[in-house]
């Protein structure tokens, strides 16, 4: 439903034709002949009456008014005719609703979306390097003799694909490390694919602790081994698309007084250690290698306070309203950050009186913070209000810093998109970074703004291209693709255990990873190819998925690309097929709606009344296709379902978990379908591959994809940028061989006033 209303924006609504009257003239015709000469076309105002015809009368009030007063002179309009005119006017331009509909789209003031707020705060504070999850990552493991972790006692260093070890009585490095007494440290970073609450879990029968995200205090501290607990857990809210530094320590040694001599009297015991996580809505699993990096990233500051969700009523997240829960959440976040900085001040300068030079240094840091938050150099006035004054009224430095942080994060200059200054290169920089990264400009972009590079179209283009190739752009594009495929809010996918034994939470989680890897290798690949994404015959399987989906992989195989004649692009990926299906059966309607709305940008009204799908058990001999056709046969259904069903039917070879099938209830699968294109052509499909090919090549798909991506990046309606913007972007998408990264750059260029105005190269 996400795009339900958004889709209705494209193409721009044409005035509906009034019902054709069987006899006589229509309201439109009456208006044109009798009213327009004075009131102008569509009542916009004319020679005789310049004011536009707008108001709040109801149709019947308006009708009475017309028959009583119009036209001037003795002969008035007959009531039946007035009624027709009133109906026409009301619907087309008179009523407040019609006025709203006819209002030209414009670029409106927006606040940061929640995603943008969180990212901006994270980038204001932390120094996390952007990364993209790789197919084969891991953590750096260092193996030490004894209890101390220093160079002298290090026996081995290597990259481990994960931490999932059962050490036997010979220990982890036989011969080099005494199995009674050793310590291991794993270091690196963990990548969060989705935003949400993660649980980190260490399972071990020995001492362990985890340092996480640059916090001095361990997130998990079981360094004192006590009793028989072997499962240690902690929660952390993580933002998607970032890698967080982690250090896991494990020790088989004792603490306190050295008891080596005593311990060596008995044979060494085995030991185990596993690093697991529970992703949002996921099962507990060993952290997969593709989400681990052996390099330690800088920490990210995560705003932990919950925010109300952003408005998505027109198909994309946008910051079009301010509400009390939102305002409260920003206050909480600002106070959290104020505390964070106050603690730093306390640690660095203490609470006693400090020398003036230190105060100046603190002010200078506040200025840098403010400049980055406001995305532009500070004016004297801002400097006075936001810094000098706050330090003046509060001699206590901790309090002064808190005041600066509070004022900054609550200021419209931070909270809103580009309100703090003139249209200048800094505005351009900010538009670029929020457009491509959902965050504030990085140092390089700020430098380009300051140096004047962003004053030329070529300079803007150069930066946009650099940024489009940065991992942060992938994070934003991935957000978009997940939304486009209706899997952005991690769905709960549950299937009948009777029908699909072995399809459990772990499978669903693997399938999501599989889709992620597919998108990364196509849309996120070297050519960022839209066509590849729509057509690729790849699927990503690991050993566990291979059992259900073929591919003949050994049970413990890591994820790898497997070519399959059964897959035809992203739509046929098992995760999507399982998502758009029922507990036991497929759902041609859900699948058809996804294609019609999200891929083709068609407008579909919701069903005139609520329907429950016919249970399969009522018609045990029918195929799903036949049952769906039967239920949607009535004329009131058919107007939409004649579009939906033949699209959805093409995916009938995929069952409710996205596995291939050739028969249902003993009857062969009929996966043929069709689509009546906007240009009038009736396109026939023999199955999914045909349909995918059509979508990959169709102007309709390209237009819908371009428009939705435009809105996802800019948070503004594309219509606000002129009627030519969409066709122009579509043309450049084609020219760039459907490279999505290039399309992102083109969108930024088309949306930036500076890129329009400045001289073409």
């Amino acid at each position: 439903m996400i795009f339900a209303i958004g889709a209705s924006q494209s193409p721009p609504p044409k005035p509906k034709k009034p019902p054709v009257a069987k006899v006589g003239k229509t309201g439109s015709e009456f208006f044109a002949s009798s009213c327009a000469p004075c009131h102008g076309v569509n009542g916009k105002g004319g020679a005789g009456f310049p004011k536009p015809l707008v108001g709040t009368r109801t149709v019947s009030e308006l009708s009475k008014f017309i028959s009583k007063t119009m036209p001037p002179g003795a002969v008035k309009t007959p009531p039946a005719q007035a009624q027709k005119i009133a109906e026409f006017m009301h619907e087309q331009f008179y009523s407040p609703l019609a006025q709203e509909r006819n209002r030209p789209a414009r670029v409106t003031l927006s606040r940061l979306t929640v995603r943008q707020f969180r990212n901006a705060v994270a980038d204001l504070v932390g120094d996390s390097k952007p990364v993209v999850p790789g197919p084969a990552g891991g953590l750096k493991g260092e193996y030490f003799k004894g209890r101390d972790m220093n160079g002298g006692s290090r026996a081995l260093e290597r990259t481990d694909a994960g931490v999932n070890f059962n050490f036997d009585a010979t220990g982890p490095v036989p011969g080099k490390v005494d199995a009674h007494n050793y310590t291991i440290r794993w270091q690196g970073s963990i990548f969060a694919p989705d935003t949400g609450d993660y649980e980190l879990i260490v399972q071990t029968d020995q001492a362990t602790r985890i340092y996480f995200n640059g916090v001095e205090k361990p997130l998990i501290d079981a360094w004192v081994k006590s009793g028989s607990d072997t499962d240690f857990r902690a929660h952390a809210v993580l933002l998607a698309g970032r890698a967080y530094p982690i250090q896991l320590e494990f020790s088989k040694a004792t603490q306190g007084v050295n008891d080596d001599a005593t311990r060596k009297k008995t044979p060494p015991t085995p030991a185990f250690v596993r690093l697991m996580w529970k992703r949002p809505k996921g099962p507990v699993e060993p952290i997969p290698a593709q989400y681990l990096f052996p390099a330690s990233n800088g920490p990210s500051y995560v705003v932990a306070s919950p925010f109300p969700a952003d408005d998505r009523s027109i198909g994309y997240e946008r910051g079009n309203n301010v509400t009390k829960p939102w305002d409260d959440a920003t206050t909480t976040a600002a106070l959290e950050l104020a505390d964070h900085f106050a603690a730093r001040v306390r640690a660095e300068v203490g609470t006693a009186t400090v020398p003036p030079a230190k105060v100046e240094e603190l002010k200078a840091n506040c200025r840098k913070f403010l400049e980055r938050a406001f995305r532009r150099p500070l004016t004297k006035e801002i400097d006075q209000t936001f810094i000098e004054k706050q330090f003046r009224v509060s001699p206590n430095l901790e309090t002064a810093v808190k005041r600066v942080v509070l004022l900054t994060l609550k200021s419209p200059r931070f909270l809103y998109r580009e309100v703090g200054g003139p249209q200048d290169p800094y505005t351009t920089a900010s538009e670029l970074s929020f457009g491509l990264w959902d965050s504030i400009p990085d140092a390089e972009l700020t430098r380009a703004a300051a140096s004047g590079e962003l004053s030329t179209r070529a300079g803007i283009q150069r930066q946009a291209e650099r940024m489009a190739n940065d991992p942060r752009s992938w994070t934003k594009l991935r957000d978009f693709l997940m939304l486009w495929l209706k899997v952005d809010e991690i769905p709960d996918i549950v299937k009948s255990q009777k029908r699909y034994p072995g399809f459990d939470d772990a499978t669903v989680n693997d399938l999501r990873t599989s889709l992620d890897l597919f998108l990364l290798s196509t849309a996120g690949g070297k050519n960022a190819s839209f066509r590849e994404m729509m057509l690729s015959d790849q699927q990503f399987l690991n050993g566990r998925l291979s059992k259900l989906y073929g591919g003949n992989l050994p049970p413990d195989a890591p994820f790898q690309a497997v070519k399959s004649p059964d897959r035809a692009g992203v739509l046929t990926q098992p995760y999507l097929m399982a998502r758009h299906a029922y507990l036991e059966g497929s759902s041609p309607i859900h699948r058809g709606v996804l294609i019609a709305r999200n891929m083709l940008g068609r407008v579909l009204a919701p069903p005139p009344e609520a329907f429950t799908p016919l249970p399969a058990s009522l018609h045990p001999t029918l195929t799903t296709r036949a049952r769906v056709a039967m239920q949607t046969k009535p004329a009131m259904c058919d107007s939409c379902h004649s579009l939906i069903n033949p699209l959805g039917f093409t995916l009938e070879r995929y069952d409710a978990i996205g596995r291939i099938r050739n028969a249902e209830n003993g009857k062969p699968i009929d996966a043929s379908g069709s689509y009546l294109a906007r240009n009038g052509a009736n396109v026939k499909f023999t199955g999914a591959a045909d349909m995918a090919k059509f979508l990959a090549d169709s102007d309709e798909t390209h237009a819908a994809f371009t428009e939705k991506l435009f809105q996802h990046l800019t948070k503004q309606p594309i219509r606000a940028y002129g009627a030519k913007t969409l066709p122009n972007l579509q043309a450049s998408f084609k020219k760039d061989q459907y490279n999505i990264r290039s399309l992102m750059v083109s969108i930024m260029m088309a949306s930036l006033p500076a890129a329009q105005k400045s001289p073409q190269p």
Partner: protein
Amino acid sequence: MNDSSRREFLRNLGIGAAALPFLTGLPSLALAESLAKPKQRLVIIFSPDGIVPNTFWPDAVGSNFVLKESLKPLEPFKDRTLILKGVCDRVKGDGDGHMRGIGCLLTGTELFPGNVQGGSDTPAGWSSGISIDQELKNYLQKSLLTRTRFGSLEFGVMVPEHADTWTRMVYAGPNKPVAPLDDPYQMFGKLYGQMKDQDILRSVLDDLRGDLAKVKGSIAKADRQLLEEHLDLVRGMENEIQASRKQDVGHKVPALEPGVRRDNDNMPKISKLQLDLMVSAFLADSARVATLQYTNSVGQARFTWLGIGEGQHDLSHEPDSNKAAQDKLTKINHWYCEQVAYLAKRLSETKEPDGSGTLLDNTTIIWTNELGQGNTHTLDDIPFVLVGGGLGFKMGRSLRYDRVPHNRLLMALAHGFGHRVTSFGNRDFCGAGILSNLS
């Protein structure tokens, strides 16, 4: 301030202001309290490494006794003091004497086996049970009449940074050690951070409104509505803060001496700051239970301000024959006793807000230690010195018991609060019921 208290902060600003848990003296709570019995509080103060018996224990039993050198500072409160000799930590199991000494002191039960190896015995982990202060906190928090904002506060003075069996006395449950807060500024933030933040927030609202108005003036007319709505929200927040402050009939935020660094030689200053904060917290009724842990079991503080250069633990190993060392240890315990006496003094000078006497009338302080004596590592004759009222014990006495398990004292504390447990910690030590002859 942690996340949850941060969230609490804003909830408190809203309509919920009437239910602000940190504001006492609200009509509804006052009414409830008038129906209840007087407040009861418990403070447990820990100092390490045992005492010097012959300068500590009074010779006489009963109410006619003389306070010796170690306990001299309690002279002004002698008639409100109760000294228990012969109460022993009988818990055995894993861990050396110091580990069991602190880990079983308030829990009365064994340590789990683990990986912390002491100077003798087998390695151990954390305690396998809850400590009495947390048990009582949970008991008090269960009832609306005795519930407070924090329930309990865990203070520390110079507690080492590392978490192990020697540095933890308080347990929220088996394997759940609670770290004491030994930074008075952090404790201050916990107690008064919300009020401070409200002040700061309120004080920047003018500038914020000015900024919003300025930005509003600089943007297209069609977009101003959004900022107008935003301004309304800022005004709303201002009103809420004002309303919540009007109801704040609570207590003055104490002024803290700034810039006291965490440093061995600053121990007396830190101690005073923490004791003052504890009194303020009681006055505001933020908690009814508090613990205060000086250093740790095996504590090595150097009492330079008493002219003692050696670490306390090293000294405590010296034999009885080393007169100089015993004198120093006596001085050290005298100093700890001064801290107890200072707290008693502050409590005795502070009136209960409801007029029911002084805070000391309703507060029992217990000063204790992980060992009976340092150089023998005995867990017999653990010092338990009680000062103050509230639990219904008959004070002004020196009592002698015959090797009774300290579990029975822990049970007696619970009973003092009306929490009639039939055992606490290891049941084998609880058979004879609460410690006799206390009331």
